[in-house]
Structure formats: C-alpha cells, structure tokens
C-alpha cells in the first residue's frame, strides 16, 4: 500500500517522514491469526445462514405460515378480478362518462384548511 518513491528530498520535513516510513509498525502474528480466524468464522456463519434460508428453506417457511400465504394469494386474485371485470358499483365510482370534476369531487380528500374549520371553536 506504500510507494516510498513519492518522497521529495528538498522537503524540509522529509527526514522526519523518511524516519517514520522506516519505522513502519508491523502486525504481530497473534493479530494476523485473530483476523484469519474472524474470516473463517464469518464464512461459517454465512454457510449456516444459507443452509437455513437456501434451497428447501422457503418450503419450510411456507409450511409454517400457510394462512398468511393463502390470504395473499386470495387478495391478489381478487385484485386481478376487479381490474379485469369491475363490478357495477366500482365502475360507477370510477365514472366513465361523468363530467370532469365530479370524480375529483368524489375522491378529493379533506384539506388541512377543512379540518381546521371543523375543529374551530
């Protein structure tokens, strides 16, 4: 990571920088061993997580939470059905053919100003 060739001999601080570069601190064997151990531990942890959530894991998760999965499928099917063939009530609200502004009046939410008027007094 070091390129000592960048030193400048005419720099008045160069003698100090050179001395500091020559006294580069080196890691102990114990530190290197600890760091290599960390690497192996992190690897093992990843393997364990993969084993839990990897191939086959999603089937086990589905077995545990089938009611939620069934509700999700039902809601999706209902959404698609309403989109493809909307019931009359929905079609009226979405109002094909209504005058411009009517639909906006139907869905426009109360503004902060409206709320302030209601709560005044």
């Amino acid at each position: 990571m070091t390129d000592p060739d960048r030193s400048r001999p005419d720099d008045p601080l160069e003698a100090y920088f050179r001395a500091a570069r020559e006294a580069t601190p080196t890691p102990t064997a114990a530190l290197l061993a600890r760091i290599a151990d960390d690497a192996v531990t992190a690897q093992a942890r990843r393997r364990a997580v993969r084993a839990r959530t990897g191939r086959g894991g999603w089937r086990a998760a589905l077995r545990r939470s089938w009611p939620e999965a069934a509700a999700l499928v039902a809601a999706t099917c209902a959404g698609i059905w309403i989109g493809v063939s909307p019931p009359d009530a929905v079609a009226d609200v979405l109002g094909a053919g209504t005058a411009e502004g009517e639909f906006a009046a139907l869905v426009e939410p109360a503004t902060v100003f409206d709320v302030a008027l209601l709560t005044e007094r």
Partner: protein
Amino acid sequence: MPLDAMDERSDEELLALYAAGDAAAARALTLRLVPGVFAHASRLLSDATEAEDVAQEAMLKLWRIAPDWRAGEARITTWLYRVTANLCIDRIRRRRGSPLDDAPEVADEAPSAEARMLSGDRAAALHAALADLPERQRQAVVLRHLEGLGNPEIARIMDIGPRAVESLVARGKRALEERLLGRRADLGYTDDRS
C-alpha cells in the same frame, strides 16, 4: 488452493474466492492487507493496542461485505483506508471526550517532543506532532507522505476533491514545520536534513 498460487491473483479475485468459501484466500488476503491497515491505524492513533483493535474491526467489515463486493467499483485498499480512518477518527473523538483530554493539550506535549528530538528519534517526534493536528489534516499528511499515495487516491479515500487534499496537506505540513523545524532552531540544530 495453495498460498503461493494466491500471489498472482488480485485483491478482488481473492475476495471473490473467499466469498465462495475458499479459506486459503482469506489467509492470503490477511497477509497482504493487514500490514497496511495496521500501519495506517498505528500512524493515525499512535497506539499499537488500539491500532490492533481497529485493524481487526476493519478486516471484519471486509469479511462481512465480501459476498456483496461489487467488482470494479472501488479498490479494496482504498475502501480499507477509508474504513480504517473512520474507525480511528471515532476513537480519537472518544478520547477527546474523555476527562483526561479535557486538560490543555500543548503544555505536556512540548517537552516530550523536544526530548524526542534531542534523542534523535525523528519518527517519534513526527508522530507526536501529527497527534496535535486536526484529524483530517493528519489523515491527509499520513496518506500522502507516509503511505505514499497520490492526491487522486487520497481524494477518493477521504471523499473530497483533489484540491481539498492539497489544501489539507499544505496546512498540515505548515503546522508540522512550525512544530518540528521551529524547535530544531530553538535547540540549536544546524541545517542537517539527512
């Protein structure tokens, strides 16, 4: 894969091998990267024990992000310099917040630096003077003059522009000169720059 065969591979290739489960790649990366990380942390912190903790923490972050490392986006050494510096700066700030550091800094440091110069230990004198610089100036001077990096890489590490790097290095060096060279004259040193 034997360690010798790892020498030919780039840092990124080794990290990808490690992420795929190769333990030898982790050993090769440890031997290749930790000396630089530890040296940088030591220079910023001036404390070997704390530097060991920082080196271990920085490498642990590397092991954890290995599977998500996106090749070609940044050099691993650049990323490590940045992580290491951030960890060091956190520790320096915590030190400053501790009760011992509430006392004025200059009074105790000056005789120590003079004594070190008298003993000819320039490296120690430099580290004492570096410790008095603001964090970003210290980081820029260490990266430029001790790690030997160019301004563009320092800019990437520090997440600033090359001009800001130049400015930080220049201000840092001016402060070091006042501290180190000013005292040389006070102490009667001749113009010996060897």
